[in-house]
């Protein structure tokens, strides 16, 4: 059994689908933070069989976690203060997603304009539909990058 020590302040992202933790690491841009990060892959889980866990030791205001709601609803976010779980954060779908997913409409200006960010807005919160800000094409996970 692998043991990773407790963190004093930060987040524990639990119930990540096995193998997806590195993707989250990139989406949350953890490589740009100067903090301790533990990536645990394929941990045993009674609920999921296998799961990934991310432990991030940082100031809790440093991360925008709303993007997690877009990526995977089932992730549990534990907020840690003084070494204890202080709250389980409820994830809210972000109103806008910037440079996380790409527009795949070949007629969209994002396909040719240099350095134009790929921005999607939440068009239908109930059905969780995001549309490209520029061409309004619906984001389709099957064409996700």
């Amino acid at each position, binding site marked *: 059994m692998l043991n990773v020590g407790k963190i004093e302040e930060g987040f524990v992202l639990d119930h990540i689908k096995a193998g997806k933790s590195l993707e989250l690491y990139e989406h949350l841009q953890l490589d740009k933070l100067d903090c301790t990060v533990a990536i645990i892959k394929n941990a045993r889980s009674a609920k999921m069989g296998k799961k990934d866990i991310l432990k991030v030791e940082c100031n809790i205001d440093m991360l925008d976690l709303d993007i997690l709601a877009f990526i995977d609803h089932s992730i549990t976010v534990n907020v840690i203060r003084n070494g204890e779980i202080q709250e389980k954060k409820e994830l809210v779908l972000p109103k806008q997603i910037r440079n996380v997913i790409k527009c795949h409409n070949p*007629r*969209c200006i994002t396909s040719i*304009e*240099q350095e*134009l960010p790929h921005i999607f807005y939440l068009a239908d919160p109930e059905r969780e539909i995001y549309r490209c*800000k*520029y061409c*309004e*094409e619906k984001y389709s996970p099957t064409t996700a990058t």
Partner: protein
Amino acid sequence: MRHLMSPLDFTTQELDRLFDLAGDIERNPGKYAHACDGKILATCFYEPSTRTRLSFESAMTRLGGRVIGFSDANSSSAAKGESVSDTIRVISCYADICAMRHPKEGAPMVAAERSGIPVINAGDGGHQHPTQTLTDLLTIRSLKGSLGGFTIGLCGDLKFGRTVHSLIHALIRYDNIRYLFISPEELRVPDYITDMLRTRGIPFREVIRLEDVMPDLDLLYMTRVQKERFFNEEDYVRLKDFYILDAMKLSKAKDDMLILHPLPRVNEISVEVDDDPRAAYFKQAQYGVYVRMALILTLLELA
């Protein structure tokens, strides 16, 4: 500073003011003949469109302003690889207002984000064509008396036809309108539009044969099947002659039904229909100039 990207950028009250202004321009053109003296409109057309471009140029010229611009991407710096963002920054130094047509969807929005002058979307790919929509709304309001309380049939290419998408988006803000979508299976109106109508409880039907619904219509909006929207030539050839409106089909229509068409037409409306009093598509082109004049004045805050 305001731009026009979508017909929904203006509230219905603002549209009423715009249409009132267009009506005043129609009745009193002399009053506005020097309203834009000293002002310059840049027409940045990255794809060919004689009609819309000339309508803008006519509008600015009738207001006393001047026009600069280009009419296809090959004669602009885009051919050298310049981005839309850079182009509009430069154009902002040369002109007071810009009308942009671009084959890529969202290009005018990119321009508006970087621009120092008002930008008008003059058509972006298969996405939006708001000034055509303003033209359509003004035509309906002027010839039908109001924007609401009618059954409209939209016929032809409802999949790629941006004028149709824009018009539906604009009309859903008005009350008591029923929609009949008349198209071949391959060119049906996109799901997001039918979803939107369903969500709002707005009645609509999708049919294939124009003849079946002709007697129900107060307005018939014809569209062309546009070659440039197809990636596959074979599909275009198969679908281009699916609907042709002729005197025979029109014999089943109401006496006061209006026939609209964004133009240019190819053969989807037979020439014999042109003399029918219900044919409003050339009058519609005239309203296009008035509404663009009103729009230029409004965005330049000269109205």
